[in-house]
């Protein structure tokens, strides 16, 4: 298997989808000739033409409306929101429209739309570029929120998202785009949506995370291993809907849990995971659930970003607390 970067895996998935199905379209701001601001769509317009890979005017709500309208003409749109911090401009299309349409039309309309968007800190972007807003979209019924944490998943999950008849918000971690490399299987394959994966086996404690939190958790697990603590890391991969079974399996296996998310602590995915565990598996717990999340402030300006973001040391410390609880 070839080793590829996260962003190359994302591009490869779109390339294969465009090749396989003429109804697949890719559009967004600067995705054409420029290949996207991160080059996620580099070369796709040259290969598939301006009819299928094209730029849009600079207006996110228009992009969302375009996607919804195109489904009536049997297209399968992959729309890009250049940075997920810009999602507020397209929240009506996502939450008010595409998420509700299957329900609204009594199950008679599919919404095979993928909303691709980069998110996440660590690269000192200007304001509104790096925010972790997955909790906000995960709260919306009728939409799937997928957040791959490695290149192989980025490719397989994106292909699944494109095949899905439900709208999928597909969040790509900016920091991982080029820093994360991994083995990626050749050719067309799909990785099932709504299924978490154990990315590090362990027996003493479960670290549950997703997206950009997963590499932090994995680093902590390696660190803990040196201290003789065997941590299992569960990568949720899809944060809405949650894979409650896989969460239950690891919780009942280890009896100790630390939930790790890059987003602020308040509400959000981590809180959902913790409440599901409390409601369903509390009798398997040997210690209170630990949580590592960013502080409850507005996403910080670039200079202080590194201080603000979660770190593997914090995860290690929290795991020690949970493991040592009697």
């Amino acid at each position: 298997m070839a080793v590829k970067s996260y962003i190359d895996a994302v591009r490869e998935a779109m390339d294969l989808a465009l090749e396989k199905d003429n109804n697949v379209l890719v559009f967004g701001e600067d995705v054409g000739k420029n290949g996207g601001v991160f080059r996620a769509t580099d070369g796709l317009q040259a290969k598939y033409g301006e009819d299928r890979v094209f730029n849009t005017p600079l207006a996110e709500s228009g992009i969302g409306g375009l996607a919804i309208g195109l489904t009536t003409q049997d297209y399968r749109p992959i729309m890009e929101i250049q940075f997920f911090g810009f999602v507020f401009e397209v929240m009506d299309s996502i939450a008010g429209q595409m998420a509700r349409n299957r329900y609204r039309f009594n199950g008679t309309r599919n919404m095979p739309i993928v909303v691709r968007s980069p998110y996440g800190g660590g690269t000192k972007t200007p304001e509104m570029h790096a925010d972790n807003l997955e909790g906000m979209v995960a709260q919306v019924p009728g939409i799937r929120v997928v957040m791959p944490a490695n290149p192989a998943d980025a490719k397989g999950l994106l292909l699944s998202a494109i095949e899905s008849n439900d709208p999928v918000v597909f969040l790509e971690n900016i920091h991982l785009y080029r820093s994360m490399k991994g083995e990626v299987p050749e050719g067309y394959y799909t990785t099932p949506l709504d299924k978490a994966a154990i990315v590090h086996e362990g027996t003493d404690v479960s670290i549950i995370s997703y997206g950009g939190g997963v590499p932090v958790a994995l680093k902590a697990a390696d660190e803990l291993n040196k201290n003789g603590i065997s941590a299992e890391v569960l990568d949720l991969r899809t944060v809405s809907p949650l894979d409650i079974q896989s969460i239950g399996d690891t919780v009942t296996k280890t009896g100790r849990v630390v939930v790790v998310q890059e987003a602020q602590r308040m509400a959000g995915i981590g809180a959902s995971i913790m409440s599901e565990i409390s409601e369903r598996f509390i009798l398997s717990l040997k210690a209170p659930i630990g949580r590592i999340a960013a502080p409850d402030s507005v996403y910080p300006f670039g200079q202080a970003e590194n201080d603000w973001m979660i770190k593997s040391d914090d995860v290690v410390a929290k795991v020690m607390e949970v493991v040592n609880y009697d």
Partner: protein
Amino acid sequence: MRDVVVANKEILDFDNQIQIQDDVFPILHILDSDGEIVDNESLKRAQLTEEDFITIIKRMLLSRQLDIRSTKLAKQGRFGFFAPTAGQEASQMASSYAFKDDDWLMPGYRDIPQIVVKGWPIWKAILWSRGHALGNVFTTEEGKPVNSWMPQIIIGAQYVEAAGIALGMKKRQKDAVAYAYTGEGGSSQGDFYEGVNFAGAYKANAVFFIQNNGFAISTPRAMQTAASHLAAKGWAAGVPSIVVDGNDPIAVYLASKEARAWATSGKGPVLIETLTNRLEAHSTAGDDPLRYRTQADIDAAWKKEPLIRMRQYMTSQGIWDEDKETAYITEVNALIDDQIKIADKVSKQKISDFIKNTLEVPSYAMVEQITKFESEGK
């Protein structure tokens, strides 16, 4: 040198700009409020046959009866939400008459009559009003698809979505358009600009209507924008934009027909502002127009309503009379009675249905909830 001086002076003459705006949007009108034709050439250009005229007036009367009956039923609690349409029959029925089955209708919540004449059975419109998802299944009685979106509540969303449909039609090389309706209030929405602008940028097959009926709930047209005409907003996007007497069925039809022809020719969208009037309340949910407009204003508007002039003109042409109208209204009311009976027989939806229609493949937690509600018969 001197030319530049003069030109620069003009550029900086803001008062002049306001004046120019007022002058560039003459109003298209063919049939005046007394039922007289003021422009025979345009009448000919509309190529309306006797049969067309009869269909249009029948559709206008259908719309008026639906309005009367819906308002009444809403007062009795037998209807849900209904946005009255009286006064807008030309704007809604004469415009939609210019479109074809393959065209996609993008309605706002007041545009129920356009969907009905496209083949959506009235019993479904009743269910929509009552809040039942079967109302949003856009098929004819025979199960043929009706190319209409649901009546949009977010009053700019249908514009951006229309741009998408229009672009898709262009890509598929269809001889069809997306036609979207909003009001003058809706034209203040960001989505309004984005929709018109996207369709313009892609030269997509769209026709956009602003039904300027004077009020957005209680807010008068003058408070929506300083633009002399709402059509000016289309110009900003480089889209041909016109103002039409929205109470003149012939003018509205002609404008719509020409706009459709333009939009299917690959030249891009057209924006049409219809000047009309909402003669009744915003909705049947407790709005009292006398809180924000005078009875005299409402009375004056009733004198200009489109049915009066259409009836007068067609009577003068010997193609319509009181007997025909009475017979048709009786027929329509019988139809509405039947349709209410059909709607009354449809059972309430279940919570488990709601969950099943949320995602194609339900999640673990959703399956649990479906099972629970089904076991309780909900």
